[in-house]
């Protein structure tokens, strides 16, 4: 019952916890998947979690310029788009040269 009451409203803490769970899933995906595209998906998920907390802080926390959080998110989305383009181009290039996009098998920089 107390959990239901806890969930009956949305405060900063709740959004932060949702963001944390999302971030953790993204982290797990990014660390544990073989496929380079899957790794990228994990990274995007982590970026989304961070964006969510930005928006949450903008919404709930006292600030002289509350919309700066939104502006940050816009920048993060921009950077994420650029990053995705480059990362996927890299994945394609790596596949072209080594015929695999399994990040475990790409051992070029391993010492």
């Amino acid at each position, binding site marked *: 019952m107390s959990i239901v009451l806890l969930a009956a409203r949305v405060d900063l803490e709740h959004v932060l916890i949702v963001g944390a769970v999302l971030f953790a899933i993204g982290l797990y995906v990014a660390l544990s998947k073989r496929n380079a595209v899957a790794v990228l998906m994990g990274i995007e998920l982590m970026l989304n979690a961070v964006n969510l907390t930005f928006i949450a802080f903008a919404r709930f926390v006292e600030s002289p310029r509350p919309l700066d959080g939104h502006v940050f998110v816009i920048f993060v989305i921009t950077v994420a788009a650029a990053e995705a383009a480059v990362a996927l181009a890299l994945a*394609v290039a790596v*596949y*072209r*040269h080594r*015929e695999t996009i399994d990040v475990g098998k790409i051992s070029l920089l391993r010492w």
Partner: protein
Amino acid sequence: MAIKTEPLVVNIGPQHPSTHGVFRMRVTLDGELITDAEMVIGYLHRSMEKLAEERTWTQNIPFTDRMDYLAAMTGNFAYCITVEKLAGIEVPERAEYLRVIFAELQRIASHAMANGTFVNDCGAWQTPLFYMFREREKILDLFEMTCGARLTLNYMRIGGVAFDIPDEFLPQLQLLVDELPDRFDEYDQLLVDNEILLMRSRDIGIISAEDAMNASLSGPMLRGSGVAWDVRKGDPYGVYDRFDFEIPVGHTGDCFDRFMVRMAEVRQSLSIIKQAMEQLPPGNHCAEVPLNFRPPEGEIYCRIESPKGELGYYLISDGSPFPFRFHVRSPSLINLSALKEMVVGQTVADAIVTLGSIDINVGEVDR
């Protein structure tokens, strides 16, 4: 270093809206580019050449309808002219003129159909096809008026034609001949001035004059490549040497040239029809041919210019009422043989346009 991709093998046909029947093309694709193509024919094989050996010379005429069913008159014409030459039958003057009129009408109908479906293959949503159908319909009405049939006509006989034309035929034909040039001007406006159609068909499916001759192409395919060859002029049959007409010849041999050659040939056909109407003599419409018709022993090859190209019949007679050998040189089949060279290296979309510009009729390809 290109990305290593897996080739995609796609069956175009036999059930495909743009293969004009049950023709199948097995293409290997790299993305959208065709790297290899294989023609598969035979889905409509009806064994006509063999069946014809079991039937009398006259009974074989309906088979010729059903080969190129979009140009049944020319099939009739080619067969009858071959048998007449084999047996040395003199055809009455009036019948010769009627044959020319009907063959040219059939050419217009067939070209209308070919160009309509060609634009359809370019992606127009059937509109040009329906307009072309409208013109073809009027020609079919004339056929119906004369012989009762519209598609598989079985109109010509050995020695002439089956029926004389009815009285109201010539006025109706005059109306049509007067009306069609305006109509085709309109289609020129709609189609030839259309930038998208130009983009889709120009410099697509090019075949050079030399290749076209080496591949033994004929008809608009050959003329589109810039070779001025027409059986009606080069090897005149019937009364074609009495008419004054011109051969439209393309420049580069692309799909657009073939399309335009057909458009121009319609006008030449109309001019032939006009001249034939003026010169049409009175008289008998069919020579006397015995019911138990047995041509003398011998063999013959005779050809005419069908809408699709050089349509030839090779017949051997052993003096019996049945042909010993009945072979057709069908223009659709031989024009189709150049398709592989034309489509390899193009995209799928262009391959469809190229196939449309060849104007095959699977009934004639497979026989």
